[in-house]
């Protein structure tokens, strides 16, 4: 919010002036009000491995993160470029393998990857799009300097909080929205529906779209319900669907009904017990055969995980060059691939300065944040790392941007990141904003909601 001189940066000025006029008591009351509303409405999140708090609300911070129109334009262009290249990459590795033949990505990095799905070889998907919904995690290090932390191309979540946080801010502080022009984000579900319809199987006129959820015990169940409701489509579980003659149907009170597009929020492994994990009770037997026959579209496609894997991440800038012939707009964080001996040696020597992550990990589990870790933690991690170096990558900790955040002791800076959502269908679309996650612990860099992170509303100011 503030620059080095302690002055508000231009696009924060209006908000900063307003904030200075608010009393701590009022802000405290507003915070309690927000917590109450989230709980009563049941906007909750399940945390794994925690019986007591089977349902929790994600802490919501009422100080927004603000982007100027100019900053956003740059970010948006970079995101579109990146997602476009990633889609080209997925299509390529399941068809011509040009990028492998060109020697840019080593073949073993793809074919030995557990997320690579041989079932998808030479399967054509509508509009050649694999990741219809992408959530790209971004941090800002300096002015106009954006880094991508991670690409999420499987089932990225959090978009419902983006919309709910906005609604909450408008409810708590309506006057702020009169003083400035803040770009709206609430039309996300409309864009999503349009995107899903645009990737329908080619022989279908009016596609029947559904959201497929693993069920109410999934941590993101609230979001699944929310998106289905907002799009006005059915929320289904695996047991509601069945496959007959390579077509997918759902059981309704009026008999079977054909399903054309499935926005699935279930991982590949659980989608079809006949093709993947046979113990899965969440999926639909025969779904893969219907999919391969082109009678149903899955969003996202099967096998996108190979492209958002942390071991593929280092190659994304080269992908952009290769497929689009463009210079990457967004930066990659320099990454040490521990499978390479020289990178491993460097990592082992600098553990206390680096962030080490599992290549297949997600949600902030199984990672080491060097600067915040104790000696013992580092040493025990070193053992794991030496045993399976190919499972890990390491990155320097960036001077992440912080944002003033309302905490116990008052207002203090906390680290933040941003997950904007990119929708690829007939065209690539985004809403101006995203989910801002904030690490509520002082000095912490981990923003995942499963690790005690919170959320903030994200504003893009219109010119």
């Amino acid at each position: 919010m503030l620059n080095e001189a302690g002055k508000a940066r231009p696009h924060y000025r209006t908000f900063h002036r307003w904030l200075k006029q608010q009393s701590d008591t009022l802000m405290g009351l507003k915070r309690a009000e927000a917590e109450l509303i989230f709980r009563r409405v049941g906007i909750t999140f399940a945390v794994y491995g925690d019986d007591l708090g089977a349902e929790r609300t994600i802490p919501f911070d009422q100080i927004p993160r603000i982007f100027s129109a100019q900053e956003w334009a740059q970010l948006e262009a970079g995101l579109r470029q990146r997602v476009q290249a990633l889609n080209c990459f997925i299509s390529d590795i399941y068809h011509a393998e040009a990028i492998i033949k060109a020697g840019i990505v080593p073949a073993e990095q793809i074919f030995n990857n557990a997320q690579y799905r041989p079932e998808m070889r030479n399967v054509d998907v509508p509009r050649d799009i694999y990741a219809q919904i992408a959530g790209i995690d971004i941090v800002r290090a300096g002015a106009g300097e954006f880094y991508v932390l991670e690409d999420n191309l499987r089932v990225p979540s959090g978009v419902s909080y983006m919309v709910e946080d906005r609604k909450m801010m408008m409810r708590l502080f309506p006057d702020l929205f009169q003083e400035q022009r803040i770009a709206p984000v609430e039309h996300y579900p409309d864009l999503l529906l349009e995107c899903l319809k645009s990737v329908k199987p080619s022989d279908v006129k009016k596609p029947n779209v559904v959201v497929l959820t693993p069920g109410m015990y999934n941590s993101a169940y609230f979001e699944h319900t929310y998106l289905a409701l907002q799009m006005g489509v059915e929320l289904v579980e695996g047991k509601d669907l069945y496959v007959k003659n390579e077509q997918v149907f759902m059981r309704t009170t009026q008999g079977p009904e054909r399903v054309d597009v499935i926005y699935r929020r279930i991982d590949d492994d659980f989608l079809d017990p006949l093709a993947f994990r046979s113990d899965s009770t969440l999926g639909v037997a025969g779904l893969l055969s219907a999919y391969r026959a082109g009678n149903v579209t899955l969003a996202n496609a099967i096998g996108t995980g190979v492209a958002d894997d942390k071991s593929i991440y280092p190659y994304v800038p080269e992908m952009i060059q290769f497929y689009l012939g463009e210079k990457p707009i967004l930066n990659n964080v320099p990454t040490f691939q521990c499978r390479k001996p020289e990178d491993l040696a460097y990592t082992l020597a600098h553990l206390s300065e680096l962030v080490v992550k599992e290549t297949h990990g997600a949600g902030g589990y199984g990672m080491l944040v060097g600067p915040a870790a104790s000696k013992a933690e580092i040493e025990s991690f070193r053992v794991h790392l030496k045993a399976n170096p190919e499972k890990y990558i390491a990155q320097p900790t960036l001077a992440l941007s912080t944002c003033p955040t309302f905490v116990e002791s008052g207002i203090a800076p906390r680290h933040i990141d941003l997950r904007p959502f990119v929708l690829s269908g007939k065209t690539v679309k985004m809403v101006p904003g995203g989910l801002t996650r904030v690490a509520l612990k002082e000095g912490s860099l981990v923003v995942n909601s499963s690790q005690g992170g919170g959320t903030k509303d994200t504003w893009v100011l219109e010119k």
Partner: protein
Amino acid sequence: MLSRTADCLYWMARYTERAENTARMLDVSHQTSLLPQPEQFLEQSWKKLLTISKLEDDFGSKYDAINRHNVLDFMIYENTNPSSIVSCLYSARENARVIRGRITSEVWETQNTTWLELQTILVNRERSDHSRFLDWVKHRCHLVRGVIQGTMLKNEALYFLGIGTLIERADNTARILETKYEIQENLKQIPTKKELEEESGDSFFDFYHWASLLRSVSAFEIYRQIYSDQITPKKVAELLIFNPQMPRSLVSCVNELIPLMAAVRNQDSREIERLLGKLKASLEFSDIDEVFSQGLEEFMEVFLARINHIADDFSNTFLIPLAVA
């Protein structure tokens, strides 16, 4: 609509109705147990309360003695008992949670608030006052129904909720009548036909017995209003079986089910409508004298078999088939 969604709506309504009915029955039994009466009768009536819901065996595996404290404990709090109030409220809320997108947010918030308030009550369970708690349950269930009527679109979802409520209600009224009548028979021997026709047997004891039955279905005042007469078994049965104005009578439940069933009709549901029509006709063209000449107990057994057959058919046609669920 998805069959699973319809299933959740139907069971949400059934469990809400069941929670309320259990609360009514317990409240009345609790009140009557405070009256002076033979010890043997007291135990009998608590036992019957378990019989109504076919729970004697479950109860027996948990408690040694049938008495007020144990039965109330089992029927209110025991979460292994699927008919206990806590279980019913839990199941109603879980079903609502699955389909929160298909009910209005007001309905969901009402169910959720009930559950959250229940948690607070459970913490102070030892100190809780049964009558007040049971009143609270009734009140919350009334509220859910009111919010449903007041906020939901009049479409399929509302019809499935209605069907769940009415089937549970008919089932409950029939069970209460059957069981209470049986208790009376056991204790006082079967009243002869002649005695019934003379409408005698109006001892002090009899009065409280039948008055409690009426209270358990909120019909005590209604009875006074309609008959302005002494309380007799025959008239009580007539009111609860045949009176179309009495919201919990069997006729009333069946009559209201018919248009709802027509509204959700699909290509396989003709048979259900036929069975329902037949049940309606058999009630319409019968009267209380015929019921008593056949025997009330037998009549109720037949009725329960028919309504449950309809409920099973309904599940298999519209909802998640019972074999799968």
